[in-house]
Every structure is written in C-alpha cells, then in structure tokens.
C-alpha cells in the first residue's frame, strides 16, 4: 500500500550517490547546507567480492558485472538497447558506476573544450580547461590519485597526491617501443592509492580493480566520500528511487518525489535540486517530470533533453608476446597511456582522436571473453595452444574514441518496461558515426603497429566491442543559448533556476578521455558557484 509522506525540508536534495553527487554533497555540507541525497541502490557489499579467491572471474559474470541487464539487481532499471550499437555499463548504488570503474584518471586537454573553434565541428564548451584546472587539483586530492607529473600533453599537471603505480613489464615494454617510434606515452594516472591515503588502503596489485576492491585502494565515493559525508551530517537515503522533480507555478523546483525501500512514496522538499543520476538517469528523470508548464519534460524547452548521446566507442588491440607479462600481478587501471593520436590532424580524413591505455588481459577464463579479445570462439583443437600463447603473455591497447554529438543518438522513456518501483525504463537509440568509425580504424592500425614494434608475435583486433558503454555523455547539454542547450556552464537549468545538473549529461562534446575527473571537477565548480550565488538564488516559496 502506498501513501505520501514528507520529510523535513532540506537546503539541497541531490539525486544519485556516484562521484557527481558525492562531490556536490561534500561542497554543500562543508558550506553549512542541510543536504539529502536520494539513491536508488544500496552500498556495495565487499564481503561478496571474490578478488582474493579463485572465483574472481566467475563473479565478474554476474554479481560484479557492469552491465545492468546481466546483473539484474533490484536497483537496475530496464534499458532497451535493441537500437544501440553499444551496451551501457553502469552501477546503481552508493559510489555509482565508479564501484565498477577501472580508476583510470585523465583530465581533458584544452582543445576538448574548443572543438568548434579549433576543428569546426560540434560546439565549444561554455568553460575552458583553465576554468576547470583548479577544480581538477582539488578533485585529485579528494579521490586519492596516483600519477607522474609533467606530461607534456597537458599545460600544467605539476603534482599528484601519490607516486604512480609500477608500470610493470607490459607498460615498460610499450614505453620502450614508443620511445623507439618517437610516440607519446606516459606513466598511468589512476584513482588508485599507492600508499595508505585517507580512507584508501595501498594497492596490492591483484589486478582486479573492477570487481570489488577489498583493499579500498580504488577511489570510489563509497570509500572516499560517503563515510565522511555521513559524519558531517548529510542524509543519504538508499533504496530510494526518484520518480519526479516537482515544480511550482513559477516553474521553480520544489521537491524530489521518490519511492522508498518499503514502496512508500515520499517527497523531499529543498531550495535546490541537484541531478547526478548520469547520462541515462538524468534525462530519464527530466522526461518523467512533466507538468502543464513543462509538457515535454522538465527544463526541455530546447528539446535537447535526452539527445546528443555520446558513448565513446571502444576498440582493443591485443598483442601476444613471448615474454611473460603476468597481467594479474599489477594494478588494473592503466599502467601507461598514450596521447600520440589524440589531437586532430586533418590529413587523416577525420577530426578529433583517441586516447590509448595499456590494459591487462586477465586470467584464463577471460581468454574467451569479448573484452579484450573480441569474444571469438577458441574451443576445440586449438584451445590449449591458444590459452598457452595468450595467458600471461599478452597485453592490450584500449582505445577510447571521441564521439561527436548527433541529435538522433538519444535516450527516451520506454513505457513498455517498468523498474522495481514502477517507473518506465529507457530506450537508447545510438549509432556510431562515420567519423568515429574512421577514427577507430586509424587508431586500431597504429596500435597494431605499436605492438609489433614492441615485438608482438600476433595482434588481435576487436574493432568495436559492444559491451563497453562505460562513458555515457551529452544528454542534457550545456551551452550559453537556452534555445539549444539545457543547462549553462555552471550546470543551472536555463528554465528552472534552482535545478542544477552536475553529471556527464551536461557535456557538449565527449572528448576521448575517461570522463570521471572532469565530471567530478565540473560538479565541484557548479556547487561552488551555487554556494557563491546563494544570496541571490531564486527558490520556491
């Protein structure tokens, strides 16, 4: 039976307890706000982790799988991907998708914010690299990042909180190959503690970051933020699914309506509403929040809510080597990365580029998997030979391709499905563009060249792996023009002055980088701006 109940009004209510939500929560509570966070999932249960036993790879097939349609936990909502080239990977719970992430830590480059000015495509961001730089520094301290300062691919990375993890045999081999080729590479930056740091323990190199880091070395907000935030007085409501953002007659947000773990519908009133539900969850919630004033969904006067979905199509090229590389004896994350082919070079016939990182290839069961091997069947006569060649003797370049925004790539409500709380699921309509395909093809060839230079006896290409939709961007785009964007450069909805969006749905272009540092830095900047504007902030009465 359902009934409505209201709780005490807050200063700010945040939807989503991943990095975007946790960073905003920290800023607001430190400035004395009463903060409530609504999160549909629960805390990750590390007692169910198998990183230290022989069941690691099996558990990655279900409980610790990043694909919600495989995992089917209570907090996972239905996502129809029949018209998508890529499967979305997310985790719904405290810590958000970073509970599953690799911890690869990359800032964007200055050109990523100026795609229109520099390359004549898509749009510039309403902020620059320089605007975000101080926030990156703060975020790198808050997320316990390890790395090696001075990469000449960035203007000013002068320091990291911790020294980089060992680059290992695989990283060293590729570094030396790139030195011979005259190609860029750099020791990996990772949100992985290499010494005991605040709530994080030093990494013990089990190479299992994505399946439940029991050492808490990997920085996800369930480790780095939430325990402290609870002590500071933030109220985190788990197993609570936000259904709608309510607005008043003036079009100001008044409350988040949610269904709690007992099925009771509740309202959380607040002066400010902050959305941090990621590139799928945020447009879903806006689309669900229809009213007379906002018949097409909240803050959607531009019609851009749900559109311009960008997914970072991802390829891998594996090199098989005679050398013993034992990829399960290092950090997973990224031992090294390369930005040699990141910036636009017009003669290549496409714009923008890709970021590469060395990625370990896993243990015996992974040899049959789509990531990074492409998933081609290896059974039968060649089984033992294939395992012998590959296992412990391989490494991969993972290639993150920039994907440009296109309005037909989108997220829509799917009224034919329902989540556990009765809300409609979503449908993704997503096709990779020719520019992205050309860009990937070029980079795949270069990566094979790099592996051959390092001495690979074979290279195996997975040209675009379907199960790699881990970066979900662009579906509530920011811009200065309310006619063509949803929020401004501080995440404020053009049409709803006390609604702020702080996750990756705000990105006008996708860059080719792992997005979490920029999502977190943007959230911090947005929250800081809201705090600074508190005196003049319009709020519902």
């Amino acid at each position: 039976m359902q009934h409505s109940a209201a709780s005490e009004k807050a200063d700010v209510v945040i939807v989503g307890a991943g990095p975007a939500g946790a960073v905003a929560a920290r800023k607001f509570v430190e400035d004395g706000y009463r903060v409530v966070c609504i999160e549909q999932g629960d805390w990750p249960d590390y007692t169910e982790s198998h990183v230290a036993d022989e069941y690691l790879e099996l558990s990655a097939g279900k409980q610790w799988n990043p694909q919600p349609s495989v995992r089917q936990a209570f907090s996972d909502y239905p996502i129809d991907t029949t018209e998508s080239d890529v499967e979305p990977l997310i985790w719904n719970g405290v810590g958000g998708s970073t509970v599953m992430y690799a911890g690869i830590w990359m800032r964007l480059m200055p050109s990523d914010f100026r795609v229109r000015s520099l390359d004549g495509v898509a749009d510039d961001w309403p902020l620059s690299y320089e605007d975000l730089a101080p926030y990156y520094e703060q975020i790198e301290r808050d997320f316990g990042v390890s790395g090696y300062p001075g990469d000449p691919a960035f203007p000013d990375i002068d320091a990291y909180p911790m020294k980089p993890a060992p680059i290992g045999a695989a990283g060293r081999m590729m570094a030396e190959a790139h030195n011979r080729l005259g190609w860029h590479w750099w020791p990996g930056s990772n949100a992985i503690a290499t010494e005991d740091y605040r709530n994080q323990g030093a990494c013990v190199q089990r190479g299992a970051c994505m399946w439940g880091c029991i050492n808490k070395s990997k920085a996800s907000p369930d480790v780095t933020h939430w325990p402290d935030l609870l002590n500071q007085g933030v109220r985190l409501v788990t197993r609570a699914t936000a259904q709608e953002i309510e607005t008043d007659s003036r079009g100001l947000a008044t409350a988040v309506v949610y269904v709690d773990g007992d099925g009771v519908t509740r309202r959380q009133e607040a002066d400010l509403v902050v959305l941090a539900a990621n590139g799928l969850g945020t447009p879903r919630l806006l689309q669900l929040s229809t009213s007379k004033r906002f018949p097409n969904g909240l803050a959607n006067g531009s019609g851009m809510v749900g559109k311009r979905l960008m997914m970072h199509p991802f390829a891998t090229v594996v090199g098989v080597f005679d050398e013993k590389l034992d990829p399960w004896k290092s950090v997973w994350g990224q031992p090294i990365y390369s930005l040699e082919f990141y910036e636009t070079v017009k003669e290549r016939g496409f714009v923008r580029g890709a970021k590469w990182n060395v990625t370990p290839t896993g243990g015996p069961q992974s040899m049959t998997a789509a990531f990074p091997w492409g998933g081609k069947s290896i059974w039968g006569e060649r089984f033992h030979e294939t395992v012998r060649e590959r296992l412990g003797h391989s490494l991969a370049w993972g290639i993150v391709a920039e994907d440009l925004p296109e309005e037909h790539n989108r997220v829509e409500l799917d009224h034919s499905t329902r989540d556990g709380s009765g809300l409609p699921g979503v449908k993704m309509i997503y096709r990779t563009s020719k520019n992205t395909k050309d860009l990937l093809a070029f980079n795949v060839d270069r990566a094979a060249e790099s592996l051959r230079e390092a001495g690979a006896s074979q290279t195996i290409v997975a040209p675009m792996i379907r199960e790699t939709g881990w970066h979900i961007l662009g579906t509530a785009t920011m811009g200065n023009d309310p006619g063509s964007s949803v929020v401004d450069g501080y995440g404020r909805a053009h049409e709803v002055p006390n609604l702020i969006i702080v996750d990756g749905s705000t990105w006008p272009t996708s860059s080719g980088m792992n997005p979490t540092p920029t999502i977190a830095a943007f959230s911090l900047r947005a929250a800081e701006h809201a705090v600074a504007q508190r005196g003049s902030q319009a709020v519902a009465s």
Partner: protein
Amino acid sequence: MTAVSLGFTDSARDALPDLLRADERASLAAVADLLIPHTDQMPSGSEADVQGEFIDRVLSVRPDLLDAVRTGLAQVEEPLPADFAELDARGLSGLRALAEAVTAAYFLNPDVAKLVGYRKRSAIPIRFDEDLDDLVASVTGRGPIYRPTPGLGPSHANS
C-alpha cells in the same frame, strides 16, 4: 547479506542438493571433451572432472548458470558430434554459455591452474619505479603536444 561460498569446503558442497542428474553429468563430460580435448600436456575437460566437483563449484558461485548449462546440454542431441567444429556448426543458441561454464570449471581444477601457470590473485606490495625520469626523457624532450585554448598562447600540437 551472505558471503557466497568464499573458501568452499567439501562438507558445504556435500550439503548442496544434487544440481545435475547423472545423465546430465555424463553428457556434460562428453561435451566438455569436445570443447577441451586431451593433449599430451593437458587433461581433457572430463579428465579434469568438469562434470563433477568443478561444475558444482561453478554453480555454487553462479547459481544463475544452472539453467544455461541445462539448456545447452538439452540442445546437444544424439548422436554427439565428432569434434568441436561439428558441434559449433550446429549453431546451438545455448552453446556459448555452456562452453563458458565448462571453461570456468576446467580452470578451477587446481591441477589445471598449475599447468597453465595461473594462481588466484595474491597481494603484492608496491615497489615504485626508480627510473621514470630516464624513461620519459625522450617524451619530455619533444616538448608540449597539446593545442592550447585559443587566445592563450602558441600551438604545440604536431599537426
């Protein structure tokens, strides 16, 4: 919250209801040998007891696989194919999941794990690299490679 079978013991396994029927185990053994044949160095699937202790251990961590294993086995009708290529050519929808369960079971056998040189993940304390300055010298020597924000300085990119 229950920890799922960390450190599975024989007595705990004995307590499980028998998950697969004897005839299912027999056909699992046969299919396992098509997927993973015997060689001079390596045991076949059935020699590694995929159909016995090790499929049970797989299912103890992944009860969700039971249906997949059953369905896959039911699809492999008599007469059994002569080799994997022939099995693959039948295009059975349940083969992939069955094959993955068999592979998982095979590598859980400690003798097999030893033969392929893989052990469960162990803790290895970090020892930092001491020579990174030297290793990156040629990268830094080539100077900046990014395009700066327009209006803020000269372009460094290699374009």
